[in-house]
């Protein structure tokens, strides 16, 4: 209670006594003490006055005609409900049994005749203290209930706001299974999945330190960054760097976010993984073999940009391989005896999964069996992504509806990146952004991104870095390809990649011309099998070949110049 209890404050006191003289004495005594008095000559009158007058305290003669004091006390206590109204019996009763009956009827104490001024004053003060204490307690309890109700309401509102930012992305895709409570964001867990403009998926699982609103607030910028960047074509590594930098800036020192980023490329059958502080991820091969993917980084929101390493591990996969991500909540699930599920629990569940059983089901069943009758849920997030054929995925929606704004229709633009920047920066999101200013192209963001990334990767890897694509098709070559790529990127000198765009409106829509030039040696496009074959069937997943097939399928025309180091593409779009 905010105000101190004022003992001497006037109280409204109900007295009931059938003796007129006694009532007169008591009434006068109480008035002299500064209280307001309601008086009744029997039990019935007392109850009626209690209803109409709502007194703070009641003094009742035990024996009265027309409803005696005991009955009146019971009725008054019933009417008072949760309100604490002390009922004191005035009595010259002396038998223990009689006194006990008074207490059973709801009496809180006694006052004996003859009246004694000092005694009456002391008793009233004592019972008033008790009343105020009870009032303070029940006020606090009500306040707590109210605060709790408010908190829950706020959480639901916050959850709705969060859902608008985070939505479920492509978590409902047929190759993703997950368990995440709708309110798990308040235990600090987040789970996002987004398709990439050129195909493939990004999945991010995070676990913020702390609970409640602080943990949930950190989740907002992460969600916005993830979905915003993923839809613009940034890769997992770019997004991790951005999230890390943002969290370092906004989170207090003792708060950070453990997380795992997963980048799946279904056409290359390749997974990229980054784990900073979360429990081991698990790669479960279609054959049933399991490999753990331990954390190799500090959580997000700790290191400054120059110390932060966003390099992702690259894993070759086959269709049917599955990757499981989880937050601490999985390891912390406890049995009825209080034992934690732990890493052994996960390992056992994954490794002992029956053949044909989905590892996600195996793990969920194991957790359920382990925790028994205890509930688990809000602070446990589990996600499983399955590698599939790109064709196996239903087509992604065609982006946003065209804007009513006309946007630029006639423009040219040249963008060139040079030297070390080639190894440090991907121009694709920026280039995509420029093209997306044209409303007609916005619906085609996937195709445009694919065109640009094929052109750029081809120019970089085969033109500038001169990496032979054949390397990628053997397990040994695969590793060599990527380590060589990193090594060569760090030594790039005297090179550039230049994009020239030209967009013009047509009666039927618009035409985008993209010329991509690089400073490399070019390649023998005259003899390239794909460029010569009339049917586009491929004998294997030949990367360069696949890229060219894609370009041919998407573009109106494609022309190679100068030993293939200049590619000229025309892309038409229709109203």
């Amino acid at each position, binding site marked *: 209670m905010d105000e101190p209890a004022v003992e001497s404050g006037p109280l409204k006191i109900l007295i009931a006594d059938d003796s007129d003289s006694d009532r007169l004495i008591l009434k006068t*005594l109480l008035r002299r003490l500064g209280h307001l008095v309601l008086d009744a000559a029997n039990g019935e009158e007392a109850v009626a006055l209690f209803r109409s007058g709502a007194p703070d305290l009641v003094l009742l003669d035990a024996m009265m005609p027309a409803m005696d004091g005991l009955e009146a006390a019971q009725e008054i206590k019933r009417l008072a409900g949760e309100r604490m109204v002390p009922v004191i019996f005035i009595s*010259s009763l002396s038998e223990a049994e009689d006194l006990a009956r008074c207490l059973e009827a709801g009496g809180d104490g006694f006052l004996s005749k*003859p009246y004694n001024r000092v005694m009456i004053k002391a008793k009233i003060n004592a019972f008033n203290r008790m009343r105020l204490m009870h009032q303070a307690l029940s006020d606090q309890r009500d306040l707590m209930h109210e605060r709790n109700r408010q908190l829950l309401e706020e959480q639901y509102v916050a959850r709705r706001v969060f859902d608008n930012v985070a939505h479920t992305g492509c978590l409902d895709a047929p190759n993703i299974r997950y368990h995440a409570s709708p309110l798990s964001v308040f235990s600090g867990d987040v789970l996002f999945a987004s398709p990439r403009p050129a195909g493939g998926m990004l999945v991010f699982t995070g676990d913020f330190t702390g609970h409640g609103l602080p943990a949930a607030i950190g989740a907002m910028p992460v969600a916005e960054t993830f979905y915003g960047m993923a839809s613009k074509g940034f890769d997992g590594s770019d997004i991790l760097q951005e999230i890390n930098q943002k969290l370092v800036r906004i989170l207090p020192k003792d708060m950070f976010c453990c997380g795992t980023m997963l980048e799946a490329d279904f056409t290359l059958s390749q997974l990229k993984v980054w784990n900073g502080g979360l429990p081991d991820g698990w790669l479960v091969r279609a054959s049933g073999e399991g490999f753990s993917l331990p954390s190799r980084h500090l959580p997000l929101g700790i290191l400054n940009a120059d110390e932060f390493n966003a390099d992702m591990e690259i894993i070759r996969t086959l269709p049917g391989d599955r990757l499981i991500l989880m937050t601490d909540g999985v390891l912390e699930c406890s049995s009825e005896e209080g034992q934690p599920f732990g890493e052994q629990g996960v390992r056992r569940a994954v490794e002992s999964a029956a053949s044909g059983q989905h590892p996600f089901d195996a793990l969920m069943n194991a957790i359920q069996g382990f925790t028994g009758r205890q509930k688990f849920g809000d602070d446990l997030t589990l996600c499983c992504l399955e590698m599939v054929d790109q064709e196996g995925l239903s087509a992604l929606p065609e982006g946003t509806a065209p804007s009513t704004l006309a946007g630029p229709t006639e423009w040219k633009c040249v963008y060139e990146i040079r030297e070390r920047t080639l190894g440090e920066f991907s121009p694709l999101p920026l280039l995509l952004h420029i093209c997306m200013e044209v409303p007609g192209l916005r619906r085609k963001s996937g195709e445009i991104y694919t065109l640009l990334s094929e052109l750029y990767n081809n120019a970089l890897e085969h033109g500038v870095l001169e990496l032979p694509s054949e390397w990628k098709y053997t397990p040994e070559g695969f590793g060599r390809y990527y380590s060589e790529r990193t090594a060569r990127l760090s030594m790039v000198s005297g090179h550039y990649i230049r994009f020239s765009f030209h967009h013009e409106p047509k009666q039927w829509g618009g035409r985008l011309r993209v010329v991509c030039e690089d400073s490399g040696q070019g390649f023998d496009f005259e003899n390239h099998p794909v460029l010569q074959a009339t049917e586009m069937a491929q004998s294997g997943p030949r990367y360069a070949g696949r890229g060219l097939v894609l370009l041919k399928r998407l573009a109106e025309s494609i022309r190679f110049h100068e030993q293939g180091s200049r590619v000229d593409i025309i892309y038409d779009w229709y109203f």
Partner: protein
Amino acid sequence: MVDKPHLDKEALAELRDVMEDEFEMLIQTYLVDSKERIDSLKGAAMAGDSDAFAKTAHSFKGSCINIGAPRLGELCRNAEKIGQNENLAEVPPVLEAIEYEFQQVTEAFGALMERGTG
């Protein structure tokens, strides 16, 4: 037997202190009230209702003690016990004693009032 004084001077002094101007009215109220109670006692005795007799005696006792008439209070206590024990044979003498003592108390209060006002 009963050896308490008709009036408790000390208690009355305190009552006068509390009641101030209303003291006289209080005494009048008590006297009117008491007459009614004596009538109730007689009625209960005639009806042979020992429970009503005991309860009335109990209440009467309380007001006597409060007003400062201890001897009458003590007689009421005896009457309450007789009623509780359903000892109706002893009712007439105690009723008689109560009526007599009430006369004494009334006179004593009368003298007190005269002194008080005079």
